């Protein structure tokens, strides 16, 4: 009895508060409300971007960031977006859980005249048409950067292998394609002699690394691992087998990746900073909320190369 009373009182207070909040937005026309639909707190990078966005939003005068997390549920992301549309946010930031499933919800927001900025990942093609822009990293470009790093490390020749992410994921496919195209563009004599999935799992990455050693022996000179965790794990296997000379390039610039570079395990990686991602997204969001257009539709965040030469300039954020 008393519990239900307490709950209903809380609901009433909340309802009143949101009513007050709604009227105060209307009163203060200057105030910008940014809605962010977030897919899943279980993804380290996305969780870090969300936290950085909220932190950066707090530091900006007259800006409020409202974050709703879909907790890995496609249906919840759709209803989250609907909620933000009904709240009449000035701009909608969307990091999609599923690039296809999110499209109908994006359509609703576009129909309501709310500018949409995709953040950190992009929806499918049908969804991209509805966007005011994209801000975030680019998997394909990361593959290209990895090609440049390996080409530098191996002085333009030698055999390499790829430790891929989960099979069929766009992240995996784009990073592999970026690497291949990057090597071709550099006229590199580096050849790719094997590629195997580790499913982002460092335990599997160790199995794959050992199999590469068995299969290719001394021929193997370098490895592109599609995230830092699998890269560091593979490098440990190579070192234990007395093949610390194999150049491993990871992806992400994570705390673990930077540590592996400092320890001399990995050759390099590229920075994918949640803070940079969040700040750029917020700047664009404010522009869009003020009715401005973005100069470019796709805005890739800078992803500087990291090797032992400059690893101390990066702190690693995730």
């Amino acid at each position, binding site marked *: 009895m008393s519990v239900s009373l307490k709950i209903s009182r809380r609901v009433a207070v909340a309802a009143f508060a949101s009513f007050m909040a709604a009227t105060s937005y209307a009163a203060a026309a200057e105030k910008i409300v940014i809605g962010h639909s977030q897919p899943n707190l279980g993804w380290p990078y996305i969780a870090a971007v969300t936290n950085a966005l909220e932190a950066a939003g707090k530091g900006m005068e007259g800006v409020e960031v409202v974050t709703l997390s879909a907790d890995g549920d496609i249906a919840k992301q759709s209803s989250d977006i609907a909620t933000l549309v009904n709240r009449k946010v000035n701009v909608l930031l969307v990091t999609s859980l599923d690039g296809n499933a999110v499209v109908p919800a994006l359509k609703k927001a576009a129909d309501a005249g709310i500018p949409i900025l995709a953040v950190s990942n992009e929806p499918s093609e049908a969804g991209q048409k509805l966007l005011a822009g994209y801000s975030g990293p680019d998997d394909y470009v990361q593959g290209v950067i990895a090609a440049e790093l390996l080409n530098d490390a191996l002085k333009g020749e030698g055999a390499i292998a790829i430790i891929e992410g989960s099979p069929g994921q766009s992240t995996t496919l784009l990073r592999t394609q970026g690497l291949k195209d990057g090597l071709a563009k550099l006229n590199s004599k580096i050849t790719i002699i094997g*590629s195997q999935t580790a499913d982002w799992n460092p*335990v599997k990455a160790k*199995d794959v690394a*050992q199999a590469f050693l*068995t*299969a290719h022996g001394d021929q193997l000179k370098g490895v592109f691992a599609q995230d830092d965790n699998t890269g560091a794990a593979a490098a440990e296997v190579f070192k234990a087998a007395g093949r610390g000379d194999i150049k491993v390039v990871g992806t992400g610039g994570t705390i673990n990746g930077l*540590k592996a570079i400092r320890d001399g395990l990995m050759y390099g990686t590229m920075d994918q900073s949640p803070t940079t991602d969040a700040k750029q997204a917020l700047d664009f969001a404010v522009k869009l909320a003020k009715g401005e257009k973005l100069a470019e539709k796709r805005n890739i965040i800078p992803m500087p190369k990291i090797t032992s030469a400059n690893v101390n300039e990066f702190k690693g954020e995730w």
Partner: protein
Amino acid sequence: MTAASTPWRFVTPIWPVLLVLVIGASLLSGPFLSPANIAAVLQQGVITGIVALGMTIVLIGGQFDLSTGATVMMAAVMALLLNPADGTSTALAILLPVALGGMIGLVNGLAVYRAGANSIVATIGMQFLVIGAVLALVSGQHVRADNMSEIFVSLSRARLLGIPYSVYIFLGLVIALSVMMSSTVFGRHVYALGGDIEAARRAGVKVVRTGIATYVISGMLAALAGVLIASLVGNLDPTAIRGYEFPALTAAVLGGTSLTGGVGRPADTAAAIWVIAVITNVMTILNYQYPVQLLVQGVVLTAAVAFYSWQRARS
């Protein structure tokens, strides 16, 4: 029923299959039989293998345990969060996750054997609960332990005669569990549970207590597998190590464990684990891509299940 005689049969078909595969693999790839690669194949089976041993015992009792993958994740994360840097923290990082794994098993066992819940649904529910709790705890971030003690690291990485310690741990478990299942009262009671639970009850088997024990064993083994993952990699994105329950279930079935209970042996599950490890290893060496690997595993599993059904129908 053939159930009673099953633990005593010596050679099940999975062993000749393993032998043929090893010969085939060494013909297909010369370096397959190199000491480093043999050690790698043995190690590759350890983590899934330990989970599969627990799965085998629960299955022999006639139930499923699909919560084990979540328990693996919980234990790996917990071991790293306990930061095994010195003697005390190393002991805690091994014992606490295993104890919690046992408690998860206890709850599973109570739900299934005391409350009579369907074991597939109950343990999937437990899986969601544990994964949810772990992800909330780490708020989606990587977990790491930067200064792991030598003992903790050596669990999976130190070697004796070129073979990682974790392989000996696995072999020790296979032997201990084989003896337990074939030569103790408890083991015979588990087979009895899976054979005919009402008959077992009438014969005086303490059904609830025995059944709960199978889940506790499974939970503790899954947690141990998680601790070994922590020792092996030291850094994790928790979501990247989801899903160990299905490879473990696959191995148990491939080893001849019946999904309806009463039939199966820990050693046969171990043989099946090595069958899968050999296939995966040699196909990775030959650079067959994931779709082909999945296809081959599918063919092997389907053929095995068909064979076992045919064998059981005949006897």
